[in-house]
């Protein structure tokens, strides 16, 4: 790289640094966090061992909302699956569970593919009434991914994740084509 390139890189980097450093999140974010705090067990001071994974997964979910029954049913099934695996006895090596497992890797791939698919769908005109259901499905997918991170041997969670993403895609597409949206 020559000086000319370096100068351009520095100019570009300066412009990037000049972009706004702050962005105010919607008020609803704190409301969801606040609602989740009461259900979130705390870690013991200076102890590496983790907390109850089931309670943790539940705590990460957004507050309950009203949403289409078929989406609710699918998410409940997903959560039952998550809960069942999280209730299994934990391996004593929880402290090193941060390392990515093969299952996590597959989950990441599925997630990436899902997001690629979502990126092809314009979402500006989605019905407002569908948003809570979509958010709930997103939260469910997040819980499943958390469960995968904590239980790297629970292969069936991959199926749960795929079904949740598939339902999310289906609902999104139907939301853009209301004629196909069942009530």
């Amino acid at each position, binding site marked *: 790289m020559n000086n000319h390139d370096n100068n351009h890189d520095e100019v570009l980097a300066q*412009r990037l640094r000049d972009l706004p450093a702050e962005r105010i999140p919607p008020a609803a*974010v704190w409301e969801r966090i606040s609602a989740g*705090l009461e259900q*979130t067990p705390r870690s013991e001071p200076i102890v590496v061992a983790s907390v109850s994974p089931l309670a943790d997964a539940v705590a*990460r979910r957004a507050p309950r909302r009203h949403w289409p029954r078929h989406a609710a049913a699918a998410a409940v099934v997903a959560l039952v699956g998550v809960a069942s695996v999280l209730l299994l006895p934990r391996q004593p090596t929880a402290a090193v569970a941060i390392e990515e497992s093969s299952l996590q890797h597959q989950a*990441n*791939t599925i997630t990436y593919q899902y997001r690629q698919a979502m*990126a092809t769908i314009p979402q500006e005109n989605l019905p407002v009434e569908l948003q809570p259901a979509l958010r709930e499905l*997103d939260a469910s997918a997040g819980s499943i991914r958390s469960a995968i991170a904590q239980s790297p041997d629970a292969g069936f969670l991959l199926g749960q994740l795929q079904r949740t993403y598939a339902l999310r895609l289906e609902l999104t597409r139907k939301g853009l084509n209301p004629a196909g949206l069942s009530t």
Partner: protein
Amino acid sequence: MDMLDATVTATAPSPPVVVDDAALARAAAAGDTRAYERIYRRHSPRLYALLWRLCGGNAARAEDVLQETFIQAWRKLPQFRFESALATWLHRLAVNTALMELRGATFESLDIGESGMDLLAEMADTPRCHATGMDLERALLTLPPRARAVLVLHDIEGWKHQEIAVELQMAVGSSKAQLHRARSLLRTRLGDAR
């Protein structure tokens, strides 16, 4: 604005009582949710700007990551040893959460080229002269996720390649290559490639 925030300027009508992060963190670690809310009010705008960029402008995703970050932080605060600044700790936690899916070799191949280039091509009709900050922000969001993450962390957040490599579980050389690629894509988008 949090009236006790350290960023309150001298133009305020009366000198604010500044409660530092460490005091708030100790209170929150002991279960004080009001202290934790003040931590959130103080740090969330900075973190949300970062997450919004890392998530490619997907506000819903950025909000989810922000929520997950602060739930995790609440859970882990009792273990916080004050060996780093609270802001640094939250920053790392947020980045770690946001980039979870970008780790792993699979994405080295998946995100090279197509998606980002396609998006860039779709925006080709936009006038390329006199690029403004908004143009730059928009162009940034069109970058492939991995390249965007490296660019945001290096050029905006000031991380070193070694730190980025560890966070994204990639080689230092890959981080440098992704940065070079991201800058090239950005310059192409902005029409000032030379």
